[in-house]
């Protein structure tokens, strides 16, 4: 499988989106996959002639021709209504020359707030309301309001996103945001699934929801097939299908912590169970007793994010994650004092007979049954290549430098 840069992926997706525009969903995905394979195959062929990967992809797109040609040809096959075909002609004639320009452009920049502004913070007064250790203002109907001053320390408070910004994100993904009468927010996706914000904040100028509520909704992998790519930590960039969203916080790692924390459920479901619907429990390793910190040396580029998934019980896990620093190191927390790493997700699975044998043997050396190290599925392959092998025996042949701090 070929890995594309963000800008290459954006250009490819922009072309494919236009080439498959207006087709019935099943046909659209079918043609999307077919054209994508064609373009990647041709781009690979062109690279052998000396073109860079970006030049090769652009040339492959040019050779395939205008996306409107493909769309209109397909429209005739699947008998789209004539009016729709006419509309497609108009829309595509406007946009046909622009698809290559998609590389590097079209990024939706969304501000994330690390704490409410000075003023008041109002929370819907429901049974789910979190208690806040802040001065309480006179109650309003259905809400509890707190005073936020310059001296208010909310550094441990969850990141927030304003309702207008959340609306921009959902609309970019084809969905919507609905503010309900009870003050809750519903995040609706095109396929009908949605998230719900338990609280709506009001700092006197805007209403906010927890950023994690939005991230969990948009990165939910159930009922969907489009790829989700998450990269960067201080300013994380999220690409879903053809939509790219960059999240900009005030400072520090808080935004990265929020968004990577939000995607951990999907990472465990994908990496451990290979099933988006798997049911399990998980929590942050940092919240567990007797946690060891480990400093890990990798050859991953700075800013790459690595996550550690540890099995704590039959169907429960703990997770930690951290960005790679400039010198290639990162620090992760685990309940185990010593870590063993595997280079492929298949070696981490729970149900394979071969794995059970390996895990039983490995348990003799481990204080706890450690399933392994994993970032997102795509990043695992890069990690494997970056780890320095130091063959010792069957279970330690991919062990890397790990030091308990």
């Amino acid at each position, binding site marked *: 499988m070929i890995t594309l840069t963000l800008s290459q992926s954006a250009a490819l997706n922009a072309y494919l989106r236009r080439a498959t525009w207006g087709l019935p969903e099943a046909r659209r995905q079918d043609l999307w996959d077919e054209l994508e394979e*064609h373009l990647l195959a041709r781009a690979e062929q062109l690279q052998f002639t000396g073109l860079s990967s970006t030049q090769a992809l652009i040339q492959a797109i040019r050779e395939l021709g205008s996306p409107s040609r493909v769309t209109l040809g397909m429209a005739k096959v699947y008998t789209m209504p004539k009016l729709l075909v006419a509309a497609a002609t108009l829309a595509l004639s406007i946009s046909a020359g622009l698809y290559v320009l998609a590389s590097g452009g079209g990024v939706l920049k969304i501000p994330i707030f690390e704490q409410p502004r000075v003023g008041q913070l109002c929370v819907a007064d429901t049974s789910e309301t979190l208690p806040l250790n802040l001065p309480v203002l006179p109650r309003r109907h259905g809400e509890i309001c707190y005073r936020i001053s310059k001296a208010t320390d909310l550094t441990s408070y969850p990141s927030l996103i304003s309702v207008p910004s959340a609306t921009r994100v959902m609309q970019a993904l084809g969905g919507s945001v609905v503010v309900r009468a009870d003050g809750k927010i519903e995040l609706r996706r095109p396929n009908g699934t949605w998230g719900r914000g338990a609280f709506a904040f009001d700092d006197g100028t805007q209403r906010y929801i927890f950023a994690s509520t939005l991230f969990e909704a948009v990165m939910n992998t159930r009922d969907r097939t489009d790829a989700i790519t998450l990269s960067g930590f201080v300013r994380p960039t999220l690409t879903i299908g053809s939509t790219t969203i960059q999240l900009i916080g005030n400072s520090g790692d808080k935004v990265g912590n929020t968004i990577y924390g939000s995607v951990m459920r999907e990472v465990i479901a994908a990496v451990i169970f290979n099933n988006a619907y798997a049911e399990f429990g998980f929590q942050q390793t940092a919240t567990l007793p007797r946690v060891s910190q480990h400093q890990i040396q990798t050859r991953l580029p700075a800013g790459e994010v690595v996550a550690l998934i540890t099995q704590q019980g039959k169907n429960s896990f703990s997770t930690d994650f951290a960005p790679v620093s400039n010198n290639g190191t990162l620090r992760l927390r685990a309940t185990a004092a010593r870590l063993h790493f595997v280079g492929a997700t298949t070696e981490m699975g729970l149900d394979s007979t071969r794995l059970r044998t390996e895990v039983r043997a490995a348990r003799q050396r481990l204080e706890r049954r450690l399933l392994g190290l994993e970032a997102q599925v795509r990043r695992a392959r890069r990690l494997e290549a970056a780890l320095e092998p130091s063959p010792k025996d069957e279970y330690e042949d991919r062990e890397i430098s790990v030091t308990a701090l």
Partner: protein
Amino acid sequence: MNPDLLRGNLELILLTILETTPLYGFAIIQEAKDRTNGYFDFKEGSLYPALHRLEQDGLLAVQFGEIGRNGKPRKYYAITERGRQNLDSKRREFSAFTGAVHQLGGNAT
């Protein structure tokens, strides 16, 4: 070559290429170039609608093969029995047409 000639005979060309072995889209283009020393150079964007039309008409059937470069199974097109009958018919038509053109020029075969 004149693109109108290619467009007018696209179905005949595609069915001929797929007569002996199933192929996926990109491989069909490569095969057409290789077997004609580059004479048949498709406007690639018109290939896929043509393949889908032949599939809709029952002249081609789809089989999914090995994983491609995008991580998804490649879509192979295979000629059906109905496609073979249609190919025979189109070949006869084409042969009759080219024969008539030769006759017009005094070069009947």
